[in-house]
């Protein structure tokens, strides 16, 4: 029965792409939404224990190589599944309205179904090979959805960039899987042997560290950590509901999920002293800091949210690196709901403002779109970790994990920065005065759009109490109610600092009073990469191509050709006169030589 979780979205995608097409787009959108609803119901029934896990299916079985497609059932997969199905369904509903007039609606819903299929695969994968398969497939659906409006060059480029960045991550991931399959003795999560994974001596630790880091490469790509984070902000070229589902709540979080599952399989005890973890934590921390800094200077509403997502993902990765995947997963869970809310809210705003995305051209939306605005503010409160919100407790868990390390202060700074840039967004775009005709004429959106917003807004404050749904793994136990201790005050302090600063700088402003080009230009990392790609890859490729043409084709092959031709030409010039007598003469000499050598030599 659980196979339906796969079959339904896949069938839906296939039917939409091959049978319905754009001619019956309305039916296609309904079919996609229906399949996601059924998946949600199935997912909930599974969590309630109505279905058991079906037997796995042998995908490849040759010699010693066995790759199965099978499902895994534990708190981690169940919690993740509910995020995917829940947000997936809400995004489908939202999209019904948002993509109403799109001229490729069918393709959109088909690809969305494909994504649902792939994401379900990652979540339920019982082994690394299966996870890798679906890992690539979400990459594909992300590529397709980012490139939905492929006629726009920016969208087409963003899609390509996303896929390639992910590919680079997957390069490491695949090697990591290969190493793990030998080191841990299996690719099946439940069969991995932590003791043999760690191995013996320095070499063992080195190899294990290398394997962990390489597997983490996959997470770097998918969860957009430094240095492969560049694709995520660009991915905002896709339709906004896609950003909410894929690039905020589920796919980008898959890296964290994967690391959590990997660590759970290896076992906490074996990982404690692995140097790799330190690196992971630092990468997460730096990503979160850098992304938060970048977010403070963005003007595109979606870009702000994208950098915010990056920053929060950095948080989660940091928690994983601190060997507290539990905290990371808890934050992933709460973050999924409120970040989806924020994205969908921004989608509603953008929709209402006729696809205007610049926050400095918005304003005064609270009056014109009260429901959307209020839900957006609720989402912001959850993200900025106001006490009682879901974000507060999950962020506190991460702070606790980092306690006593330099990372803690980074995390705290990031928390303050988060509050700063989110309230900058609120003050500029939602409150204040309308600065543009589009925002002046903005109207509240229809129920298909604000319905999901309301649901998510509620969840932003209550999701932490559904303890059965929260994905749990190794690490410190999570708790849904904030405890009043030092972290409570640190957290509150960070919020207060951020809020006050944002209020001072941005309340009722028409122009950005701060201008930090470094942050606005994302630390020039994109330019740096463009340079690297241009100077390194393209020039290297051109050089190699030249060498290939010149040395191999020109000198070796061409040389051999010219040698043969030259020799031939000499003979042709002197030997081939075209005169029969010459040939007779030569053959006569040949006969003489033949006789001489046969008789006398």
């Amino acid at each position, binding site marked *: 029965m659980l196979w339906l979780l796969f079959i339904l979205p896949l069938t839906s995608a296939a039917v939409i792409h091959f049978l319905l097409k754009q001619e019956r787009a309305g039916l296609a959108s309904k079919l996609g939404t229906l399949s996601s609803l059924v998946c949600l119901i199935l997912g909930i029934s599974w969590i309630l224990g109505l279905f058991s896990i079906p037997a796995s299916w042998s995908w490849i079985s040759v010699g010693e190589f066995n790759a199965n497609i099978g499902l895994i059932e534990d708190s981690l997969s169940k919690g993740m599944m509910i995020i995917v199905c829940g947000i997936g369904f809400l995004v489908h509903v939202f999209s019904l309205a948002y993509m109403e007039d799109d001229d490729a609606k069918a393709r959109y819903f088909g690809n969305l179904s494909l994504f649902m299929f792939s994401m379900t695969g990652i979540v339920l994968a019982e082994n690394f090979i299966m996870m890798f398969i679906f890992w690539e497939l979400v990459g594909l659906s992300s590529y397709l959805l980012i490139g939905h409006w492929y006629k726009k060059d920016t969208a087409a480029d963003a899609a390509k960039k996303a896929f390639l960045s992910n590919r680079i991550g997957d390069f490491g991931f695949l090697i990591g899987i290969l190493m793990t399959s030998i080191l841990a003795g299996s690719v099946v999560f439940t069969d991995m042997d932590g003791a043999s994974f760690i191995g013996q001596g320095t070499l063992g630790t080195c190899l294990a560290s290398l394997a962990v880091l390489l597997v983490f490469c996959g997470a770097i790509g998918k969860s957009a950590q430094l240095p492969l984070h560049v694709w995520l902000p660009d991915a905002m070229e896709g339709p906004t509901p896609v950003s909410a589902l894929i690039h905020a709540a589920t796919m980008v979080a898959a890296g964290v999920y994967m690391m959590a599952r990997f660590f759970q399989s290896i076992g906490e005890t074996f990982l404690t002293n692995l140097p790799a973890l330190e690196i992971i934590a630092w990468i997460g921390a730096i990503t979160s800091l850098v992304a938060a800094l970048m977010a403070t200077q963005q003007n595109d509403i979606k870009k702000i949210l994208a950098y915010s997502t990056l920053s929060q993902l950095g948080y989660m990765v940091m928690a994983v690196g601190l060997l507290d995947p539990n905290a990371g997963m808890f934050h992933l869970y709460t973050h999924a709901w409120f970040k989806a809310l924020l994205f969908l809210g921004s989608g509603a705003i953008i929709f209402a403002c006729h696809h205007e995305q610049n926050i400095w051209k918005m304003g005064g939306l609270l009056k014109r779109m009260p429901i959307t605005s209020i839900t957006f503010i609720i989402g912001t409160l959850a993200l900025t970790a106001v006490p009682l919100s879901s974000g507060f407790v999950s962020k506190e868990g991460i702070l606790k994990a980092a306690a006593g390390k330099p990372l803690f202060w980074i995390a705290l700074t990031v928390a303050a920065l988060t509050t700063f840039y989110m309230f900058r967004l609120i003050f500029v775009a939602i409150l204040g005065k309308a600065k543009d005709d589009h925002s002046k004429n903005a109207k509240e959106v229809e129920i298909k759009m604000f319905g999901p917003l309301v649901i998510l807004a509620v969840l932003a404050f209550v999701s932490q109490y559904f303890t059965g749904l929260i994905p749990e793994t190794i690490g410190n136990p999570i708790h849904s109610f904030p405890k009043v201790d030092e972290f409570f005050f640190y957290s509150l302090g960070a919020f207060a600092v951020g809020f006050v600063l944002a209020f001072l700088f941005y309340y009722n402003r028409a122009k950005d009073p701060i201008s930090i080009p470094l942050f606005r230009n994302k630390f020039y990392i994109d330019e740096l990469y463009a340079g690297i790609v241009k100077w390194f890859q393209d020039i290297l490729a051109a050089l190699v191509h030249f060498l290939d043409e010149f040395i191999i084709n020109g000198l070796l092959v061409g040389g051999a050709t010219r040698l043969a031709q030259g020799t031939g030409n000499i003979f042709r010039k002197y030997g081939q006169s075209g005169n029969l*007598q010459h040939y007779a*003469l030569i053959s*006569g*000499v040949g*006969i*003489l030589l033949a*006789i*001489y050598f046969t*008789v006398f030599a």
Partner: protein
Amino acid sequence: MPTILFYLFAILMIAGGICVVVMKNPVSSAMGMIGSFIGLAALLIGLNAYFVGTLQVLVYAGAIMVLFIFIIMLLDLKKEEGKEYGGSSVAASIIIPIIFILIMIPVLSAVNKDFTKLDGHALNAAAEKLDKNIPADSHIRKALTGSSDGSKNVDPNKATLPDVNLIGQKLFTEYNFPLQIVGVLLLVATIGCVTLSKKLHGDATDPDEDQRMAKTLAKSTDIPKVTITANAESSDKKA
């Protein structure tokens, strides 16, 4: 064959050969060639190869050389007009044969064998060793034994070499299959000649070619002009 005769014919053969090479007029060359072949045929007969010798005269000196002369006449070949032979080619044509002879001499000096005599006794003895399938009253046996009924009354004085019969016997038993193939070969050659002499469409670059050819033919042979012209016209139409 008496040595004196041998040298006579050998010199005839070589002289004919030299004639072929040095005569400027192709008809003279052809005549020299006939002489050479006659000498050669005599040498063959001196080797008791009567049949092959005869064949050499009939086929080579007779048929083939007639063909050559016919073609020379047909193409109306005069002396090679004003063609000077380059010194190098003359030198090469002298040096290479000389080297050839020089190489041959040591080889031949190693082979200094006289022929076994094929007198009456030897032939009588050979009759004993003949294939059993050859019947007693066959001409081969009769000739070899020198008797009229084959095996009996062996007479060395009357024994002769039944050269043609032996060749015939070999040809139609052992060499039967090659003989058939040669027949096919001749057929193919005949067809080839016919095809080659047929005028291909459009290979006459010169429109007057047919006329010119017709004149040449009319001059060198005795075919009436009218027929040729008619032929030429019809082939013109075809083209």
